């Protein structure tokens, strides 16, 4: 029981991070129907940006307030990662729009390989640990000598996720940008004909996805305290699984999917086998795509004859 509660807390934290990444997948798939394979690496890159700015703030500028540092780091990471998201879309995907269907996917794989190796070359292959951030925990209860605790980190992660998701949800539902996005999702040609700048809308979608990935990257760094150039692939796949599980194209679906994947991962590690936890993640991905491709909140696709 106590292990379960602890894993529940851990799972929801991890799930929040996955959910944030998953939104990037879901929005891009919704609008241009491609799996942005490089999104996991954008996430990894953002964690590096966050790490470097955290070091700048703490070691160079001597800011002692971790809360302030985190806030600044997150905002800077969001801005700079968005720039990456924009550039990737502009250079690697936009020229391929409307062309051969496989081309964007191959291009995205190329971007993914490029980004992870770019970070490796620029920053080295070693794990990059941060100084410990926000180490405090709140003990909830104790039983049989096992203390169930909720850490401040976990609270920060869940609160930040909730706040940002609400903000993005608002943008997509209520603003003209969100309307343009949904219009492009339905019919890009028609959207262009009624005067929507489709290129700009798609660019902004990538920017939003990258910004949320940057939040996830900052939270990941905060939570694990270490990042490596190869850390993009597996979280990326898990977040994609979350996006599909929730119903691709659906923002709340991505979050629900993320939480489910996070919970499954922590529970699997606690009760079954930690070695096979990635096997579990990939198996779930395969099972979800095969048996419930429209996910929990997605619209089922009807075969047109």
């Amino acid at each position: 029981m106590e292990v379960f509660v602890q894993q529940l807390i851990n799972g929801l934290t991890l799930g929040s991070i996955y959910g944030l990444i998953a939104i990037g997948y879901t929005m891009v798939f919704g609008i241009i129907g491609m799996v942005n394979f490089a999104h996991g690496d954008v996430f990894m890159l953002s964690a590096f940006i966050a790490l470097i700015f955290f070091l700048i703030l703490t070691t160079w500028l001597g800011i002692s307030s971790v809360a302030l540092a985190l806030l600044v780091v997150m905002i800077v990471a969001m801005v700079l990662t968005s720039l990456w998201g924009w550039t990737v879309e502009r250079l690697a995907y936009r020229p391929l729009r409307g062309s051969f269907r496989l081309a964007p996917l191959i291009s995205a794989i190329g971007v993914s390989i490029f980004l992870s190796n770019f970070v490796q070359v620029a920053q080295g292959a070693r794990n990059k640990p941060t100084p410990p951030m926000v180490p405090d925990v709140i003990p909830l209860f104790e039983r049989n000598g096992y203390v169930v605790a909720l850490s401040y980190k976990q609270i920060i992660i869940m609160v930040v996720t909730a706040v940002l998701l609400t903000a993005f949800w608002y943008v997509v539902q209520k603003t003209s940008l969100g309307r343009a996005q949904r219009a492009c999702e339905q019919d890009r040609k028609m959207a262009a004909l009624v005067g929507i700048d489709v290129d700009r809308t798609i660019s902004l979608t990538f920017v939003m996805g990258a910004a949320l990935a940057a939040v996830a990257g900052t939270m990941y760094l905060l939570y694990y305290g270490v990042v490596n150039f190869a850390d993009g692939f597996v979280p990326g796949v898990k977040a994609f699984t979350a996006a599909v599980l929730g119903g691709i194209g659906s923002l709340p679906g991505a979050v629900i999917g993320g939480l489910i994947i996070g919970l499954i991962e922590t529970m699997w590690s606690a009760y079954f086998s930690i070695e096979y936890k990635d096997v579990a993640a990939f198996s779930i991905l395969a099972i979800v795509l095969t048996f419930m491709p429209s996910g929990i909140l997605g619209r089922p696709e009807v075969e047109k004859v």
Partner: protein
Amino acid sequence: MSAVHPTSVAPTSDAALTGGDVSAAGRRGVDLAGTLRSAVMAALLMFGLAVPILLLRTEQGPGGGLILIPRWNLVLVCCGLVFLARLAIGLLGGDQGLFSRARTRKATITVSADPAKQSGFRFAAVATPLFVGAAVAFPLIVYLLKGGLAESRYWIDLGILILTYVMLGWGLNIVVGLAGLLDLGYVAFYAVGAYSYALLSTTFGLSFWICLPLAGILAAFWGILLGFPVLRLRGDYLAIVTLAFGEIIRLVLINWVDVTGGGAGISSIPRVTFFGIPFTAGEEGFAARFGLEFNPMQRVVFLYYLILVLALITNLVTIRLRRLPIGRAWEALREDEIACRSLGINTTNTKLTAFAIGAMFGGFAGSFFATRQGFISPESFNFLESATILAIVVLGGMGSQVGVAVAAIAMVAGPELLRNLGFLRAVFGEGFDPNEYRLLLFGLAMVAMMVWRPRGLISVREPSVVFRERKSISGSLVKEGHG
């Protein structure tokens, strides 16, 4: 937006948004001020991208924590290069790249004109005997140029590597190029083949020549097994599920230590024999039997011809299959699955045979890999391999056998060239290792090639049967498959 967006609409909507800046779009010739502005913007963008990641390198400090090392020179050089590159694009190609105000767009779908079709077609017809001839003569040429067998080892090894990827590319081409089933986990079958040979030979002492067909059959079996669940999937989803299967197999190979040796892999796998005669120095060895002087290179040359023969068999079988009903059904499946069903084609069986036969060739290549290396570990079968093979197929032009061969040479030999760029050390300093940039450039090249030729090098399709006159089919008509 360019392709789906009728060009007649673009200027109107853009003009509305940019405040009627249509004159720039209409102007022909070089707009120097505009190009300069774009180049400055591009350099600024580069600076923004480079700021944390390139500018500040994190290193382990003396106290154990990370310290930051600024590298202004590197960033400035990068920004300068981007500036010059953008300037060059602007001056040479007209103002239509990044940050262009003109916003003139090229239509992305270009229907290739007939001359291009014809030349591509002739190229394929001429290239095939040329390639085969060059491949057969390759060891001899290298031997003559390098003046000795031992000296030519590097080149023959490279030849073996290229031919392995040619064979893998041809195998995957059946699944992706012909049947239109996007498989991102092809390396799984390569792994099955390699582990089949490694385990069968080290546990039961079976020879390579018995294991080779067994490895193919086992891989085909796995192809069917993994094909079943994905029958209903299409496009990107199929790609992702096959990727997941590839990763699952790799992770199981890592974690199932009792059988596979885990991450340490399997070593001392028996070497290939000349149909039972080992390549050893002793009495019973190949050299002694044939009255030659022993040379360890004899085995390497034999391996070269072995993979050449295996690759050519793959090619011949594929060419044959294309002209048989099954091959035509694969291509029809790629074109329109629903129409296939309406013509009485059992799409399930058709897809599964494509998976199985593609996997079988992957299995052959895998057992060749195992006997060549003498050592295998799960890390040889990671996602990057699958991505490389898929990139070879797509770059080659889906379904084109010659294209795949050319693409394999480009993708495998290109990165190898980097190893020989030692002179760059003189430019960039002693610590510079060009090999570090191999994958980085590989990724960039993948993007660049897709932007340059999204349909691959050879995008014409050759008909499988001719009524009166052979005509090749423009790639723009050929579909890429639903799944």
